[in-house]
């Protein structure tokens, strides 16, 4: 067992920290206010391979593994949850294509994605369901060499960027769920305005409307009826990004608390001198370390998935712990800031609004606990 980072891992971490501090931090408040990531930030992320860290070099990736990915994402997430979740959702779709796609699909759709020319999407959720395949109502009807897709997808990240979107639909013939790689903005593909959500601004969520969208048969991902396994494993990979983003929020909350507790004076003494504040700081330090090593371990596990069911459990428990801890840490950081923490002028307010998203996305915490318990009970 070795808990030391390699020189390369340290450099990836430093690279992401440098970019986040030098380029994202100065516009983080603007991203939050405008709910839009400036083009030059997207270009900068692309130039540093941050849209393709864990993926194979032959498909445009950096071959940096999911362990490298978590280290970078933590640093991005620390500065802007919206930027991090954009990369996370994109990587979720890339991960699904990387795992289930054929060679042609990988070359065609992953390469521009890993290089940041395209930003990908993953569309399972619908107005009527978040994670239950039985309730999927989007339909796919085969017509010669094409499938014709109709339906509505809800809360879809990056749906208004160019690139591929992995869409889950019910095959009219078999009644099973099939995943399709669709090129966004193909005829019949339209999107709503971005949802006005509470936090992680910049990471836009939109509804996608599919009206007679023609998808070539060769764009079926993983084979007809393979939608559910793709959803399960794809979402497990996606939780690496969501967990790393939340880890960054914990670190941000922790550092803001340390800074503010030393600056804020009460009767000629910084509040850091008070035991009540120190106990909260200690709690945050404990939780950050626990969350950090759990997330780093998750990244290492994602590099080589042996048993998708066990991996789903590891993904669920990591995502639950880290995302819930981020909310706790942000809440404690607000307590330390007192009324100032409620003001949007203070970074901690944004950290809280970003953190509270984590437990709800890519499977709510209660659903994660059902996955964990299900695997634990079945393997005992």
């Amino acid at each position, binding site marked *: 067992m070795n808990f030391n980072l390699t*020189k*390369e891992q*340290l*450099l*990836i971490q430093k*690279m992401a920290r*440098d*970019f986040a501090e*030098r380029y994202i931090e100065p516009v983080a408040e603007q991203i939050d206010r405008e709910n839009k990531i400036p083009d030059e930030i997207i270009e900068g992320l692309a*130039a*540093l*391979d*941050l849209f393709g*860290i864990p993926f194979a*070099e032959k498909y445009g990736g*950096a*071959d*940096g593994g999911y362990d*490298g990915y978590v280290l*970078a994402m933590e640093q991005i997430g620390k500065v802007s949850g919206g930027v991090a979740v954009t990369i996370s959702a994109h990587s979720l779709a890339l991960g699904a294509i990387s795992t289930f796609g054929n060679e042609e699909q990988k070359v065609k759709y992953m390469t521009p994605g890993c290089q940041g020319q395209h930003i990908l999407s993953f569309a399972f959720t619908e107005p009527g369901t978040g994670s239950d395949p039985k309730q999927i109502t989007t339909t796919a009807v085969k017509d010669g060499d094409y499938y014709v897709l109709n339906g509505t997808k809800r809360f879809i990240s990056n749906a208004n960027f160019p690139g591929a979107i992995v869409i889950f639909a019910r095959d009219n013939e078999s009644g099973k769920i099939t995943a399709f790689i669709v090129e966004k903005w193909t005829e019949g593909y339209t999107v709503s305005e971005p949802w006005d959500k509470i936090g992680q601004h910049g990471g836009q969520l939109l509804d996608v409307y599919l009206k007679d969208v023609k998808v070539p048969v060769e764009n079926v991902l993983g084979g007809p009826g393979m939608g559910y396994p793709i959803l399960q494993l794809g979402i497990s990979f996606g939780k690496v990004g969501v967990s790393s983003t939340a880890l960054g929020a914990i670190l941000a909350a922790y550092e803001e608390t340390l800074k503010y507790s030393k600056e804020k004076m009460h009767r000629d003494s910084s509040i850091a001198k008070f035991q009540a504040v120190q106990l909260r700081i200690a709690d945050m330090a404990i939780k950050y370390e626990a969350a950090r090593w759990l997330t780093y371990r998750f990244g290492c596990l994602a590099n080589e998935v042996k048993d998708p069911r066990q991996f789903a459990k590891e993904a669920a428990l990591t995502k639950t712990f880290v995302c819930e801890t981020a909310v706790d840490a942000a809440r404690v950081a607000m307590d330390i800031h007192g009324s100032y923490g409620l003001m949007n002028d203070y970074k901690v307010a944004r950290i809280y609004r970003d953190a509270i998203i984590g437990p709800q996305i890519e499977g709510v915490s209660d659903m994660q606990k059902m996955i964990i318990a299900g695997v634990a009970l079945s393997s005992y």
Partner: protein
Amino acid sequence: MNIVVAMKQIPDLHQIRMRDRQPVLDDVPLTLGNIDKNALEAAVHLRDTHGGKVIALSAGSEELEDTIKEALAAGADEAFMILDDSLDNADSSVIAAVLAATIRKINDVDIILFGEGSGDNYSGQVGSRVAGILGLPQVGYASSMEVQGNSAIVTRSLEDGEEILEVELPVVIAVMADINEPRIPSVSQILKAGRKPQEVLELDDLAIEILEEPVVTESNLAPETPRKQVVVKSVDELIAVLRTEGVIGR
């Protein structure tokens, strides 16, 4: 055009803690000096403009084999390292002798770049000493540079103005921190750094005699200034005290 960039392995200054007025260096990660990274960036820019290669050169303990990856990720084409545990804390004269001997081995060098001072001791001597040993012209405090034909046009940033010099190659140039902003290496560049050519030398490989170090560093702390600790209760009283001390009203 071949450019050598001399870079020093130092403890990461952001991670040093102080205990009993002494730096605690245990488990502090090693990195390359900040201004050395400016020198590397300047070299990479020259190479990208004029062709040739950038060679990172460093002397230090065996951890250098890992540390030098920072330079290789940030654009150096290859690295020469002289490894010996004694070199991390060696005197400027020793390091200069070691670097100069290695540069002779590399041969065919047009420009040798240094940061104006190292990130830890900032003595700013090694560049001048290397130029002296090799018998090359040396330019310090460079804030910009370009190469025209067989000459380097170097702008020196001095206290009371700028000086522009034309120097024939080969030349030793020490750059200031404001000459550029070092690039951030991408993930691919970081991961490929370790695969670039690296030459490892030991002190025995160099025909130099290491003399006993003439300079011993006793402390790197800022000098202590005794405080008079005079407490005043009004601005008038403060003015009176400052006047008595001769700080104002002279």
